[in-house]
């Protein structure tokens, strides 16, 4: 059956890819010729080091730099006081929501709020002596009570920000009808507290920055590991209060980002700019992995008390949910709960709703967008509830979901049903069910603990509930929120549309300039494909240019699964404008009417006989008295959508050890038109395994003093090849009307649906050993699974 499904993918794209023999970016990356920021080296470059607070909450009594003076390697130092003196503004925050704004600087002023927060920066001549000198900086602290949990934050006894009246970052609520009175009489009610712990994006390349201040031009040349050079340009401009034009921000190759290099304004680029201006030296900083864990925006850390009620036919009557998020000290973009709510409510018909999401600040590093950015949590919450309910009323989990899909007549809903049907038709679901039942028939028979227990989980990823509207953004905005919002607006312009410029020169070569910023997603290939298809030029004549604020004046960047749709569409749009402009001009020159002409094979051709080239591009441009022709598109989508998907996960559980092995994983997905299947598959593989890590191993663990206990890759465990499943993918590929190129966002969807599928499978296995035994917080580590089995008696329905 699966073969039939596969055939629905446009074959033309398959050929394109195979003829490419891989991606255009691959040869340099495979030969060690990639250009990552830390690979760059300037003459006389100096090295920046950061002095970080060992305490999670403390007053800074004294910073003593005297010991450094004697070292020949020491050049300069900066503290929070220096930032104030230089008039550096507070950390930029995106005015996205009705949240409070944090009065925090890139170097701690007077007090530190999380362990690892920068309190001073130093500049040295030699890399080898960097850490020696960082150790020489003496800081006296007076420790303060530490807030390390939502509970403590709620109490408000200790304020993270003295100018706030509590520790609540923002609250979001949605109400539809009277949920309570619908729940009370309902025949089927389930309650659960589900959560995903604080986790790290952990791209393999640590952050890095290299700044050279060019005094004569007053220009900062900034190479940085960022998912958007244009965002960083805005951060630097707004914090240093220098016009954007004075920053030339560039990134070439980048070793992954997964959000952690996207949403946040970090201290180091700002500090490097200050140092480079002060000393006239190029300034280089590269994070150690521990600095990444201490400072790079974390994610998840959301928990939800959820009550779901169904009638006797297994139709949802009401949902009550209380979401709580630990946003740490809150940074540039800590508003993920927003997306959580959207994706919790997007898939199923929920007649009555009572939802509240509350975000609390604590003495931890800020959260930010990491792969999925709040959406995995939303999908996880609702999909766990759906599974628990299906079990309770004894309905097949697929059938139960099918019945409750929202707005049954809408094309979206048909799409969701189609995904579930495809999964069933593929035969995988039945096969896995049989395998599961065979194994579970052994339970008890086998001698103690030697039988593995099978578990099967599915999840359905639908759309968001259209919560991303200005109205809902400003809904319930507090006065304080409004003030901060207005204060931040001029400091950060709205996203706007994605930038695409396509230029063709006299030899018919095409340059594509995009505001998107690839770091593994393969734009260099996919965008070249789009331009080559639109303009009928061979793909090897197309060069994609990105990540340079002087060649690309405006742009948004690569995150939020937006590049293929927004960035890709802008390339298509610009290509089409270029083409029609060419034809228009050619028709004048040739005195032929436009309709009879087309542009193909590097020249103007007869629309009917494309092989017959009337005039080469070179001649046209000569006659127009120019050397190249360009078209620009700033493409924005009214309602972008992420791919929908159904995931199937099969696990085995070792009940004695509490360990899980993922034995099969199947994805059925519809990301709209597929530009490049190889790349789409690769994105899904990585996305799913990211969720596998988050469901089995990954946790940023803190002790009571707010020390991060998992600050190296020894203790923060991302999946290895041994822990990762093979991932089978079935595509639907229904073109999406909401994007010019028919594309839906998909880069994060593997992660969005992954947590729920894996955790549902684990809990299915648990329920076979002990009805009621559950692990409700990801990751389901061996000790938590063991505890669940041990405590099952204390759980009740």
């Amino acid at each position, binding site marked *: 059956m699966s073969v039939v499904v596969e055939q629905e993918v446009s074959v033309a794209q398959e050929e394109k890819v195979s003829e490419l023999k891989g991606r255009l970016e691959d040869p340099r990356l495979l030969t060690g010729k990639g250009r990552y920021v830390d690979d760059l080296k300037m003459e006389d470059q100096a090295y920046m080091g950061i002095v970080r607070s060992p305490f999670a909450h403390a007053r800074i009594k004294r910073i003593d730099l005297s010991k450094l003076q004697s070292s020949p390697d020491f050049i300069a130092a900066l503290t929070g006081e220096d930032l104030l003196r230089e008039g550096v503004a507070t950390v930029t925050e995106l005015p996205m929501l009705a949240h409070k704004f944090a009065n925090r600087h890139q170097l701690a002023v007077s007090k530190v709020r999380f362990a690892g927060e920068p309190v001073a920066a130093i500049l040295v001549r030699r890399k080898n002596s960097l850490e020696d000198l960082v150790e020489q900086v003496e800081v006296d602290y007076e420790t303060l009570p530490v807030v390390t949990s939502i509970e403590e934050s709620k109490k408000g006894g200790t304020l993270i920000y003295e100018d706030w009246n509590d520790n609540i970052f923002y609250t979001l609520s949605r109400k539809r009808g009277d949920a309570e009175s619908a729940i009370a009489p309902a025949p089927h009610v389930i309650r659960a507290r589900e959560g995903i712990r604080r986790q790290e994006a952990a791209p393999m390349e640590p952050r890095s920055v290299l700044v050279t201040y060019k005094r004569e031009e007053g220009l900062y040349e900034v190479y940085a590991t960022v998912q958007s050079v244009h965002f960083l340009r805005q951060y630097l401009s707004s914090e240093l209060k220098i016009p954007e034009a004075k920053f030339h921000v560039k990134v070439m190759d980048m070793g992954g980002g997964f959000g952690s290099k996207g949403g946040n304004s970090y201290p180091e680029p700002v500090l490097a700019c200050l140092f480079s201006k002060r000393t006239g030296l190029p300034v280089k900083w590269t994070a150690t992995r521990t600095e990444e864990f201490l400072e790079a925006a974390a994610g998840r850390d959301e928990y939800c008390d959820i009550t779901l009620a169904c009638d006797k036919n297994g139709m949802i009557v009401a949902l009550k949910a209380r979401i709580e998020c630990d946003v740490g000290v809150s940074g540039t973009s800590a508003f993920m709960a927003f997306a959580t709510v959207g994706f919790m409510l997007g898939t199923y018909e929920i007649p009555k709703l009572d939802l509240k999401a509350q975000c609390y600040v604590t003495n931890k590093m800020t959260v930010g967008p990491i792969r999925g950015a709040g959406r995995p949590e939303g999908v996880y919450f609702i999909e766990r509830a759906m599974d628990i309910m299906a079990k309770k009323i004894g309905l097949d989990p697929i059938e139960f979901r099918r019945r409750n899909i929202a707005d049954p007549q809408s094309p979206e809903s048909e799409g969701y049903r189609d995904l579930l049907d495809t999964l069933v038709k593929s035969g995988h679901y039945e096969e896995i069910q049989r395998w599961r039942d065979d194994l579970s028939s052994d339970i008890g028979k086998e001698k*103690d603990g030697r039988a593995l227990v099978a578990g099967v989980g599915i999840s359905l990823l639908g759309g968001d509930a259209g919560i991303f509207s200005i109205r809902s953004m400003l809904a319930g905005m507090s006065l304080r929120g409004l003030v901060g919002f207005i204060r931040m607006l001029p400091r950060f312009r709205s996203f706007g549309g994605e930038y695409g410029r396509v230029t063709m020169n006299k030899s018919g070569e095409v340059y594509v300039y995009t505001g998107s910023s690839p770091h593994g997603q393969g734009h260099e290939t996919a965008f070249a494909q789009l331009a080559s298809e639109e303009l009928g030029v061979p793909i090897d004549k197309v060069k994609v240019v990105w990540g340079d604020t002087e060649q690309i004046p405006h742009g948004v960047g690569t995150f939020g699964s937006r590049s293929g749709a927004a960035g890709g569409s802008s390339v298509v749009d610009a290509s089409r404008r270029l083409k029609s402009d060419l034809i228009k001009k050619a028709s004048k020159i040739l005195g032929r009417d436009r309709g009879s002409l087309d542009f193909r094979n590097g020249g103007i051709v007869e629309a009917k006989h494309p092989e017959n080239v009337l005039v080469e591009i070179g001649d046209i441009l000569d006659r127009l008295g120019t050397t190249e022709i360009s078209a620009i598109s700033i493409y924005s989508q009214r309602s972008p959508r992420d791919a929908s998907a159904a995931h199937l996960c099969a696990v085995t559980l070792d009940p004695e050890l509490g360990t899980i092995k993922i034995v099969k994983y199947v994805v059925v997905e519809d990301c709209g038109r597929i530009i490049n299947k190889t790349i789409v598959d690769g994105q899904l593989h990585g996305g799913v395994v990211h969720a596998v890590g988050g469901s089995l191993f990954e946790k940023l663990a803190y002790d009571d003093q707010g020390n991060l206990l998992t600050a190296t890759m020894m203790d923060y*465990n991302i999946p290895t090849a041994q*822990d990762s499943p093979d991932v089978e993918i079935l595509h639907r590929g229904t073109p999406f009307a909401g994007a010019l190129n028919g594309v839906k966002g998909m880069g994060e969807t593997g992660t969005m649906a992954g947590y729920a599928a894996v955790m549902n499978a684990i809990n299915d296995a648990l329920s076979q050993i002990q009805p009621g035994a559950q692990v409700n917080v990801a990751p389901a580590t*061996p000790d938590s699974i063991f505890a669940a089995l041990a405590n099952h008696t204390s759980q009740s329905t």
Partner: protein
Amino acid sequence: MIPKKFDYYAPSSLNEAIQLLTENEEAKVLAGGQSLLGLMKLRLAAPTALVDISKLPGLSYVREDGDHLAIGALTTHDTIEHSPAIKEKFTVLNEAASKIGDQQTRNLGTIGGSVCHADPAADLPTALRVLEAEFVMKAKKNERVMPASDFFVDFFTTAVGHDEVLTEIRLPYLPPKSASAYLKHSLREHDFAIVAAGTVTTLGDGDVCREVRIGLGAIGPTPLRATTAEQYLKGKVLDDAKIADAAVKAVEGVSPPSDVHGSKQYRLEMIKVLTKRSLRLALSRAGISGI
């Protein structure tokens, strides 16, 4: 991350190495470096001098030597994993070596380096403890041989003096009808053990358990022997019930640590599971099936 400053010596002979160590109390021996350099980069260790013995000739070997198998201190984990002699006669050591870190680590890490580092969660010490290995240490004048029971003193602490170099590890051959097994329970395959268990069993007439050794790793400052459990099993014909009893006895008097990967309580339970499973595995290798 870069270590603190240190002086580096690459002696050309063992005696030269010992001389250097004798002269410098703060000097540390560098073998494969896979454990030591990690701590030095974190700056948790900052020896003022390193004496690099990794290139000294004649310290990497696995050879039969009368009543024991002799392993040179510089023999890598990878070599141990692939040595037929060890695989056949000392399965527990072969399995322990195969479970250390990843391929890159096994390629450089040495048995001598690992045991002298004496990380409580390391794999080899537990295996060597149940094999009742002997450790040969050379000083300027004398050479001494010490049993595993005395060699491991505390976390990161062994009996090797600062002016001594561990040169060889000896594995006394096990009597006929012996078998062994090593099991490691960790979050991911190549992580440090949450709990590890190594067992050696020797059967007598009528499959009576003549000799049994149970070693436990990652649960105390040094690898431990579950002596109560051992005593209980000796002289009995083993079955599931007796193995289960022994597993319970294995946790008597042990006090494993709590950390982010497992609470004390969880570790205690895992000790039972791994003791049971490693015993079963060893016995099945000895030809006792159906347990």
